[in-house]
């Protein structure tokens, strides 16, 4: 569409992983499976370099010219006037997320090489892991909805295979299935939205859709199906980004190996939903009542899952609910029309949440388990100083403490919510409080406390080695310092949109990006002060309940088993979903075994039986008597005669 040649870097984004996967699968795996990660790590390096180059290109940094581009490279399918072409779109939001994904992803690859060493499925893990990486890159560089959907499904596939990686475990199998099925339920919306988009706009390309939509809006209206499209896309995003009501798969998905949880179920894959909404924001924001819905979903999910996170004991589950909460925050930002903020928080969250997960992985590794329970650990800050340090940095970032990354992104969002006013203003305060509470509760329980209820003292925790710590530390540095990149990210996002001449007018009109602040105002009197206060309150409360009244957690569980059950079932939502799934299953069994097999096929088979029965019944009329025969002949002749005389 645009007469710019695809730069080599963009090609390498695909060529390197594909080549690495093929080489690893066909050559390395049969010969030396434990070396599978080498070609893949090489590919990671290439991809990271390429994506930073592309980000620089979009920004025009370091004298690299070219900017954004959007170009078709493949005629995928065509019939008559209907055609879907595949292409590459490298623009601001894409490049920003791409840079984070490739950097964090590559480091997690390095971590995984150490973490998964010696596992019998090492080779399989790396292949699928890298396949995911490839799919995520594809998702971020897709230039149309169909292509986006393609990679959207592929990341789902990778998620399925990795959540079910330890398939001998019942829980892992169930979690994998649940993850995939829930995403399928979301994809129901996405696919339907695709069809509506295609039938409304006759095209799936973002930039063309933006222009067409802008033209329609200039004529003072929106396409009939647009509200449906928007709602369906939001639904799809809710599944992928684990928003209420479809959030429940993500905590269970922690059954996968820790690198998977870190990369896919925290830093990157789950943000695909947010990314989809960013891409679709011109469409969604054109329907006046949809953004508040998005904001509402986000805010509710953020608080809801923060509360549940506060009650969990499994480290990875706490982090999973935290992820859900932060994805809610991103959605909230989108709902408030703060697109750039949403992307920025997406990037920042990717850093600190990856660190938190990898630290949890290190802790688990110390007790030779995929994940740890707070009952099994405690007071390990001395034994695992590096891990502790990284966790602390990330926790501070998550809680939004200046100058860590989270402050710049999360508090900016809360700021925007405050400015927005209304109910969401008070939600933002609660989120601030909740985030601080659950993350510090986790920190204290894991690294500080040493209570009799915990068995951590009996274990002998230790750092697992440089390969486990170094990548984490590098990411933690990113988590600490990323806040200062905020201006660049803002510039990246805006420049990205600007760099596409055919759509710039439409986009700037639709998005109204200019007014969005990326840096939270250091306003001590307003939201900033309040949210800081709430965070401090959360910190204090968690300190009191874990360090001062050390056994409080165990006590209330013992005293209020029913209350715990309520938390355990996510306020009853999980049983409800299970009930729904069970109902579908029961209906399917009815269809398959009763309706189809017993009734309908029974009727079909019965018709053969009926024919035989009729035959047997008729046989009674053939007793072989000659006089019968003759009588019938006379009767027949008489009937003919009677007919003839009529």
């Amino acid at each position: 569409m645009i007469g710019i040649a695809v730069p080599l870097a963009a090609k390498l984004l695909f060529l390197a992983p594909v080549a690495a996967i093929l080489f690893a699968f066909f050559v390395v795996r049969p010969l030396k499976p434990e070396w599978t990660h080498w070609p893949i790590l090489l590919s990671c390096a290439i991809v990271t370099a390429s994506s930073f180059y592309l980000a620089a290109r979009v920004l025009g940094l370091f004298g690299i010219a070219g900017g954004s581009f959007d170009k078709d490279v493949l005629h995928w399918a065509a019939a008559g006037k209907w055609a879907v072409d595949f292409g590459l779109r490298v623009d601001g939001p894409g490049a920003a997320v791409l840079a984070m994904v490739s950097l964090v992803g590559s480091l997690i690859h390095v971590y995984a090489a150490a973490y998964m060493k010696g596992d019998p499925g090492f080779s399989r893990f790396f292949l699928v892991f890298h396949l995911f990486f490839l799919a995520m890159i594809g998702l971020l560089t897709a230039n149309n909805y169909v292509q986006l959907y393609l990679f959207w499904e592929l990341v789902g596939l990778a998620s399925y295979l990795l959540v079910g990686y330890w398939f001998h475990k019942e829980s892992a199998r169930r979690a994998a299935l649940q993850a995939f099925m829930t995403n399928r339920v979301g994809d129901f919306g996405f696919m339907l939205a695709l069809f509506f988009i295609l039938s409304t706009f006759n095209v799936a390309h973002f930039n063309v859709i933006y222009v067409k939509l802008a033209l329609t809006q200039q004529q003072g209206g929106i396409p009939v199906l647009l509200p449906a499209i928007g709602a369906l896309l939001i639904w799809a995003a809710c599944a992928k980004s684990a928003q209420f009501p479809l959030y429940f798969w993500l905590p269970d998905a922690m059954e996968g190996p820790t690198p998977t949880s870190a990369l896919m179920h925290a830093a990157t894959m789950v943000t695909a939903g947010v990314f989809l909404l960013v891409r679709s924001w011109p469409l969604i924001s054109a329907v006046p009542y949809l953004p508040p819905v998005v904001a509402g979903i986000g805010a509710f999910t953020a608080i809801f899952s923060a509360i549940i996170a506060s009650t969990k004991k499994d480290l990875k589950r706490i982090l999973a609910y935290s992820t859900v909460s932060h994805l809610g925050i991103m959605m909230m930002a989108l709902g408030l029309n703060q697109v750039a903020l949403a992307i920025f928080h997406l990037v920042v969250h990717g850093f600190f949440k990856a660190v938190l997960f990898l630290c949890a992985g290190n802790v688990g590794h110390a007790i030779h388990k995929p994940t740890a329970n707070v009952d099994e650990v405690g007071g390990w800050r001395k034994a695992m100083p590096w891990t502790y340090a990284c966790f602390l940095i990330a926790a501070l970032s998550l809680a939004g403490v200046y100058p860590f990354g989270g402050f710049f992104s999360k508090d900016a969002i809360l700021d925007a919510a405050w400015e927005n006013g209304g109910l969401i203003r008070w939600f933002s305060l609660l989120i601030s409080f909740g985030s601080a509470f659950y993350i510090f509760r986790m920190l204290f329980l894991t690294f500080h406390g040493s209570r009799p209820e915990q068995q951590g003292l009996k274990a002998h925790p230790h750092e697992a080695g440089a390969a486990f710590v170094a990548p984490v530390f590098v990411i933690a540095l990113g988590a600490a310092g990323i806040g200062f990149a905020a201006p660049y990210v803002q510039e990246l996002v805006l420049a990205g949109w600007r760099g596409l001449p055919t759509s710039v007018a439409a986009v700037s009109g639709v998005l109204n990006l200019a007014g969005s602040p990326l840096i939270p105002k250091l306003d001590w009197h307003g939201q900033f002060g309040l949210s800081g206060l709430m965070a401090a309150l959360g910190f204090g409360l968690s300190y009191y309940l874990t360090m001062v009244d050390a056994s409080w957690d165990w006590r209330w569980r013992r005293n209020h088993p029913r209350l715990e059950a309520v938390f355990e079932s996510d306020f009853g939502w999980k049983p409800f979903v299970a009930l729904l799934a069970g109902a579908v299953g029961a209906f399917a069994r009815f269809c398959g075994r009763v309706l189809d097999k017993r009734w309908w096929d029974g009727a079909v088979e019965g018709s053969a039986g009926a024919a035989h029965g009729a035959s047997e019944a008729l046989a009674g009329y053939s007793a072989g008597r000659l006089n019968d025969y003759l009588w019938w002949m006379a009767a027949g002749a008489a009937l003919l005669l009677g007919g003839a005389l009529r």
Partner: protein
Amino acid sequence: MTLWAVILAGAVAAAFAGVMLFSRSLYVSAVCLLVVLLQTGLIFLLRGAALLGFLQVMVYAGAVMVLVVVTIMATGGEPEAGFARFADFSFPRWLAFAGLAAAACEVALTLYLGGASSAPVSPADPAMAAGFSTALFSSYALATEAVTLLLFLAALAVLPDKEAA
């Protein structure tokens, strides 16, 4: 005059046919049939087909009835007492009778509807009666020959089966 003679012969024939139908004894039935056939022969005569009447008497009375009687004798003569005249059916016997009676009524109706409209009766044409015998051996020769051959073939019926031979 002829009409009344025909009616009389017919009535006699009908009466004997009835007896034949209901008689338990085969001898009686056979004799009744003989009477009926003689009456039909008489009707042939009355209608000017003397040759045919003669043929009727010859063939039936002379040949067929002898055969029948011989066969009756061979089968052991009269049935013992209590032997049912009428056959059993797969359905109630009255139904068989009723059905057949209905059919007979139907036939009667047919004849009534059709018979009345026929042409006036002319006296038998002697030339025609003579012409008939020539026809049998000229234009109807083929049929005659065929029937002759058929009679030969029918005669084969009396030959025993080859196993029996």
